[in-house]
């Protein structure tokens, strides 16, 4: 101590207070940055040429955060192509998810009694609560998209080839973890959307042979999702999956640094990997070029996400409280699992012959009787793991040593076909199925569908969105030219309802046009001073000629904000 004190006194005597203080502060700053003084950092951010001797290498050798970053990149990988910075963006969205996720955790209790009121509290009582929730949700969806694009880019530039097979494998795991992270967060709001999407998801596990029911009970904590299931999904979402994610991001990134970012295919001789052999004239130093580039990317990406959250993004939905007794019409999984729902909808083991040939039915019968394999088990349980396995083995089964696009016509064609197939299944996974071919269309009778479109129990409701004042009390015939004074939106919606009803009736019964006798009424009743009930009644004749009546109601409060 005495010596330190002496030195300080000596310094103060010789250079004065101001200079001593500046020197000491800069000293601390240099220790904090593992070797860069304030002027060095300033030089980096100004784009000054590196000083000699180059102090900018020091953080790479001495500091923790920068020792995992290379001190230079190959010039060819610093443009947008070939990486498009997709892996880098995925990692930073993961960070964004952790930040927003921790914020949300503060206001959340994983219990069926508390979860839903917590969600309402986050939106109505917590400053920035809705913003953080929407950003967390948008980030999750963006992460699925970007991770998928990252994998697609790696496939197209053939960067999975030797020596990067294992990197690709960890990447496949990270894609699965990304999807599981997104999916496990789905249950937490404990609304109808959450409850039924996860019920569907876990029932897929239930259908698996042998361990299926056990996995299902382990996931749900009971035969049905309840308090146990919610707690389990919460722990998976905030603990297990992020932890596995961090570990595999570390492994994945270590491999990326170890082997270097693969150069654009056209720059290398066939079968060679020269990513780590960077001649000095091709080097782009991490500081200042890569660092400033990355700072820009993160700032712009986060800004785009933040601006999207408050502008075009509809926000994370919150439907009614989870109700195990009421299944909403057209329950769907999250959109990135639509392709799985599409797979389950494939009606036959071998669906490629027209079904009226009879041979498809015989094949189904054969598999069901001999192997106990139904189309649902095949497409929903057996195929998805095989798809993942296929992704894993791509580097090992691709015999082509070349990474050049011209040499990989077969692989790229197969990849595009695979993508198109996934896209087709994704479209088919929706309740309305694929346009034109009609695959996956599970819509029911026209009256139910019209009601689902205009006055559903969950989600956006066109009729509820009519301004409260324009919901004029009385029974309105659903006719072409309804003309209730001072209620233009009511008139428009009724007009659309009429068109849609006729359209759906005709679609369901193209030949007989029984739809012409379909009539409907919209009855609006004043229940309380600020509350109206709306009852849609559709009278129609079904394809068998039976007269049917369908009714569906909704309640609209003056201050519920549906119209916004």
């Amino acid at each position: 101590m005495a010596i330190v004190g002496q030195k300080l006194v000596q310094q103060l005597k010789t250079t004065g207070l101001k200079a001593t203080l500046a020197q000491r502060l800069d000293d601390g700053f240099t220790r904090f940055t593992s070797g860069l003084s304030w002027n060095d950092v300033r030089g980096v951010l100004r784009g000054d040429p590196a000083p000699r001797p180059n102090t900018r290498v020091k953080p790479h050798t001495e500091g923790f955060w920068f020792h995992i970053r290379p001190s230079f990149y190959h010039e060819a990988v610093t443009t947008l192509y070939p990486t498009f910075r997709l892996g880098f963006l995925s990692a930073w969205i993961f960070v964004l998810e952790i930040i927003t996720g921790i914020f949300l955790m503060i206001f959340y209790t994983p219990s069926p009694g508390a979860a839903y009121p917590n969600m309402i509290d986050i939106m109505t009582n917590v400053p920035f609560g809705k913003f953080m929730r929407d950003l967390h949700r948008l980030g999750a969806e963006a992460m699925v998209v970007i991770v998928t694009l990252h994998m697609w880019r790696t496939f197209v530039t053939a960067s999975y080839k030797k020596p990067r097979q294992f990197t690709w494998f960890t990447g496949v795991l990270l894609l699965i973890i990304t999807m599981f992270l997104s999916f496990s967060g789905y249950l937490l709001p404990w609304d109808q959307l959450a409850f039924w999407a996860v019920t569907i998801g876990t029932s897929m596990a239930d259908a698996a042979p042998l361990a299926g029911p056990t996995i299902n009970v382990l996931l749900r904590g009971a035969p049905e999702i309840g308090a146990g299931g919610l707690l389990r999904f919460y722990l998976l979402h905030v603990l297990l999956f992020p932890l596995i994610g961090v570990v595999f991001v570390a492994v994945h990134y270590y491999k990326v640094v170890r082997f270097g970012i693969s150069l654009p295919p056209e720059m290398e001789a066939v079968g060679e990997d020269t990513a780590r052999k960077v001649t000095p004239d091709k080097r782009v130093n991490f500081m200042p070029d890569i660092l400033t580039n990355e700072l820009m990317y993160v700032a712009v990406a986060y800004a785009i996400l933040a601006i999207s959250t408050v502008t075009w993004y509809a926000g994370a939905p919150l439907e009614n409280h989870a109700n195990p007794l009421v299944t909403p019409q057209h329950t769907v999984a999250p959109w990135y699992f639509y392709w799985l729902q599409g797979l389950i909808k494939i009606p036959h083991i071998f669906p490629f012959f027209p079904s009226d040939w009879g041979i498809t039915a015989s094949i189904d019968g054969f598999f069901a009787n001999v192997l106990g394999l139904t189309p649902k088990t095949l497409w929903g349980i057996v195929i998805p793991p095989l798809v993942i396995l296929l992704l894993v083995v791509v580097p090992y089964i691709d015999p082509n040593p070349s990474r050049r696009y011209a040499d990989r016509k077969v692989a790229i064609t197969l990849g595009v076909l695979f993508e198109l197939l996934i896209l087709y299944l994704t479209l088919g996974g929706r309740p309305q199925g694929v346009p034109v071919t009609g695959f996956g269309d599970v819509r029911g009778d026209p009256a139910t569908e019209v009601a689902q479109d205009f006055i559903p129990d969950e989600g956006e409701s066109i009729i509820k969105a009519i301004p409260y004042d324009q919901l004029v009390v009385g029974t309105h015939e659903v006719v072409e030219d309804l003309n209730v004074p001072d209620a233009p939106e009511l008139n428009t919606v009724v007009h659309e309802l009429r068109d849609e009803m006729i359209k759906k009736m005709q679609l369901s019964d193209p030949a007989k046009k029984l739809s012409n006798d379909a009539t409907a009424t919209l009855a609006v009743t004043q229940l309380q001073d600020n509350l109206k009930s709306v009852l849609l009644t559709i009278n129609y004749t079904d394809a068998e000629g039976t007269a049917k009546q369908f009714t569906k109601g909704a309640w609209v409060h003056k201050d519920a904000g549906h119209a916004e």
Partner: protein
Amino acid sequence: MNLFKKIITYRPSFTVRILAGLVGFLAMLSVCTIVGISDIGALGERDINFKARSIEAGARTYAEQCARCHGLDGKGIEANGPTLSHISFVGKSEETIAANNVLGSKEVTKSTRLTQLGWTGSLVNYIRGVVAAGIPIKSAADWETIHPTFSQAYGGNLREDEVNNVSNYVANWALAPYESDDVILPPEPGTGGTPRPTAVPLSAEQEKGKELVVSLGCNACHAIRGVMNGAVGPNMTNIATIAEGKVTDEQYKANVKDQPAATTAEEYIVQSIYHPNAYIEPQCPQGACAAGIMPQTYEQSIPAADFTALVSYLLTLK
């Protein structure tokens, strides 16, 4: 193609990087600032939206669970449920939604019913209590029919959020309550309701009968207040009074089968035990009573002395 190549090989210059990064960073900050400022008002608006949606959800639960006794318009149904939308129960409030959750705010007229009951909490909390835990004891209801327990916590079928929603809905009538005199209201506390059974000292034989109702297993299905709680067959708490009424009841006389109609209360009770299918009560705790539920073997299985004690005890239940 050239443009495409230009885009994918674009390497932003140093100035562009610093500028774009700064713009991004500032944009992020501005969004946060805007959200922070707009949340000051937006939180309150969303709060009102969600309370309004709670009332909408409550309207659905009310229509499904409450309307069959209290009427869809809350005006009550004779012999089933009292009027809820009346000013004497919900009072009158000026404020829209907030008033339901804040004690006494913007209240114009107080609920006279709650004053009579001596309830000092808020209207919505009283409703919540009754919906959730019911009024399962007749003497507390002053009303012919008890109020069932609806909360899952008390054996009902509504979740806590549904109880809250439906309570918000009922309390929302306070904005424009029904004010006419043409209503169905429970009697004032202490002035009516179900007559309470009078406590009569029991003889030794009657005491033995009181033990027999349990040891013979009557308690599996029947209830006698303070003695046993079966919930399958008719309630026996006032069976002596009921039996007396039956012997002059035309509905009973018309419907008794295979047996002569009883002429005294004792005969009615004996007949009910020995020949349970002779006459079936219309109303049981879980809906309509059914023939064949009660064993028809008691004439053979109960010793004569025990049977006399049993009947003498039941005749004290006036």
